[in-house]
C-alpha cells in the first residue's frame, strides 16, 4: 500500500510539474504574441495557424481531457470518431463565440473545462455505472464538453485585438492551427499510451491513473474558480 501511495504521489508531482511552472504564460496567449497580433491587419494565415497550434500544444487542460477521452480507446476508428466529435464541438463555439462577439468569462469557462477532466476521469473509473447504474452517452459528453472547450478558445482569441479585416480567415486559420496542435499532441499521447498498454501493469494502474487525472481536473477547476473570485 505505501508503495502504491508513493507511486500515486510521484505521478501527481510529475503531472503538476508539467502543468504549473509555466501556467502564468501558457494559458493566455502571451503578451508578445498579443503585441504581434495587434500589429496584424488583414489576412494572416500562417501566424494564426501557428498561434492556434501553440495554444493547443501548451493548453494542458485540453490535453488532460483528451488523455481521458482516448484512455480506453484502442481502435484508430474510435479515436478518430471521438476526436472528431470533440473537434466539431469546439469549432462551432470558437467560430460562433468570436464572430457573434459572445464574451464568456474565461475563468468560468476554464473552470468548466477543468471539470470536464474530472468528469471524464470519473467516467473512466466506471463511476457513473456504479453510482447511476448506467454510463451517460460518452459521445454526447465529448461533444458537449467540446462546445465548452471552444468557448475557452474563443475567449483566448478575443483577448487579442483582432482586426475586422480578414477576421473570418484568421479565425479559421486559428482553428486549423488548433487541429494541427491537437493531432501533434494526440500522437505523442497515443505513442505513450500504446507503449504502456503492452505492459501488464496498464489495467492494474488504470484506476489509479484516472484518479490522478481527476486530481489534476479538480486542481484546474479550483484554480480557475479561485481566479474568478480573486482576480475578476
Amino acid at each position: 500500500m505505501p508503495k502504491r501511495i508513493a507511486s500515486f504521489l510521484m505521478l501527481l508531482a510529475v503531472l503538476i510539474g508539467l502543468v504549473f511552472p509555466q501556467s502564468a504564460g501558457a494559458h493566455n496567449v502571451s503578451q508578445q504574441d498579443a503585441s504581434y497580433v495587434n500589429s496584424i491587419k488583414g489576412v494572416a494565415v500562417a501566424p494564426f495557424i501557428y498561434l492556434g497550434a501553440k495554444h493547443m500544444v501548451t493548453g494542458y487542460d485540453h490535453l488532460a481531457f483528451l488523455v481521458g477521452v482516448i484512455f480506453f480507446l484502442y481502435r484508430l476508428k474510435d479515436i478518430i470518431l471521438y476526436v472528431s466529435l470533440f473537434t466539431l464541438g469546439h469549432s462551432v463555439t470558437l467560430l460562433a463565440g468570436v464572430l457573434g462577439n459572445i464574451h464568456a468569462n474565461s475563468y468560468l469557462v476554464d473552470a468548466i473545462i477543468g471539470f470536464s477532466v474530472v468528469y471524464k476521469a470519473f467516467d473512466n473509473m466506471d463511476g457513473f455505472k456504479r453510482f447511476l447504474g448506467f454510463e451517460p452517452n460518452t459521445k454526447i459528453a465529448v461533444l458537449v464538453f467540446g462546445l465548452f472547450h471552444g468557448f475557452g478558445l474563443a475567449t483566448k482569441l478575443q483577448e487579442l485585438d483582432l482586426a475586422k479585416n480578414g477576421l473570418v480567415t484568421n479565425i479559421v486559420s486559428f482553428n486549423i492551427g488548433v487541429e494541427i496542435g491537437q493531432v501533434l499532441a494526440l500522437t505523442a499521447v497515443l505513442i505513450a499510451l500504446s507503449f504502456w498498454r503492452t505492459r501488464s501493469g496498464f489495467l492494474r494502474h488504470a484506476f489509479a491513473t484516472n484518479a490522478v487525472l481527476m486530481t489534476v481536473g479538480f486542481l484546474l477547476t479550483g484554480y480557475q474558480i479561485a481566479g474568478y473570485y480573486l482576480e475578476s
Partner: protein
Amino acid sequence: MTTSEQNEQKIEAPSKSALAKATGIALLVALLLLFTVILPAEYGFDPLKTGAVLKVTGISQTPEVKRGAAPTPAPGKTGVYRAEPAIYKVESEDFTLTPGEGMEMKYHMQKGAEMVYGWKADGKLTYEFHGEPDQKPNKDYFESYDLDDKAGKNASYGSFTAPTTGIHGWFWQNKSKKDVQFHLTVAGFFDSAKMIAGGSPEEMTIEDAK
C-alpha cells in the same frame, strides 16, 4: 467500440467505496495543493500562510518592480544628485482604447537616464512596462520591468532608471467591454518617443521642456 466491449478489457469494475475513496482523495489532494501552494503562488492568496513559509507567494504574479533599496547616501549627505544631459522632456497626453485594443508608447533612453511617470485610467488596463536594448542578443529579446496582464490596474506611478541604452515603455491593453480613457505623463531624459498602435510605429514629436 461499444461500452460493453470496452469494459471487457478492464479487469473488474471498482466497488462503490473504492470509487468514493478515490474521488475523495483526488478532491482532498487538489484542495490541499490549491490552498497551500498554488493559490499563494498564482494569486498571492495565502490563507494558511504556507506560501510564505515555502516562499512561493506571488511567484507567478506581477513582478511588482522590487523597490531596490535606495542608494545609501554618502556620510553627511542626505540624497543622491546626478547631472543629466540637457534633453529634459515632458509628455502629457490623453489616449482612448476601445475594447480589446492595445497600444505601446516607447522612449529611447541612454543607460542610466531617468524618468518619472504616472498614468491614470477611468477603467482597468492590463499592461507591461518593458524595454529593448539597442544591442540585443536576439531579435525578440526584451526586459520586463512591471507586468499586470491578468486583473489590470487603474493607475500606476513611479520612477525608472534605464538599465540599458534602448527603447523603454509600456504596452497597454483594454480587456474590458467598454472604452477606457487614460492620461499619461512622462517627464525625463529621453531622446525620442514613438507610439505603436495597431500598425507601424509612429514617431512622436515631443518638445524639450521650457
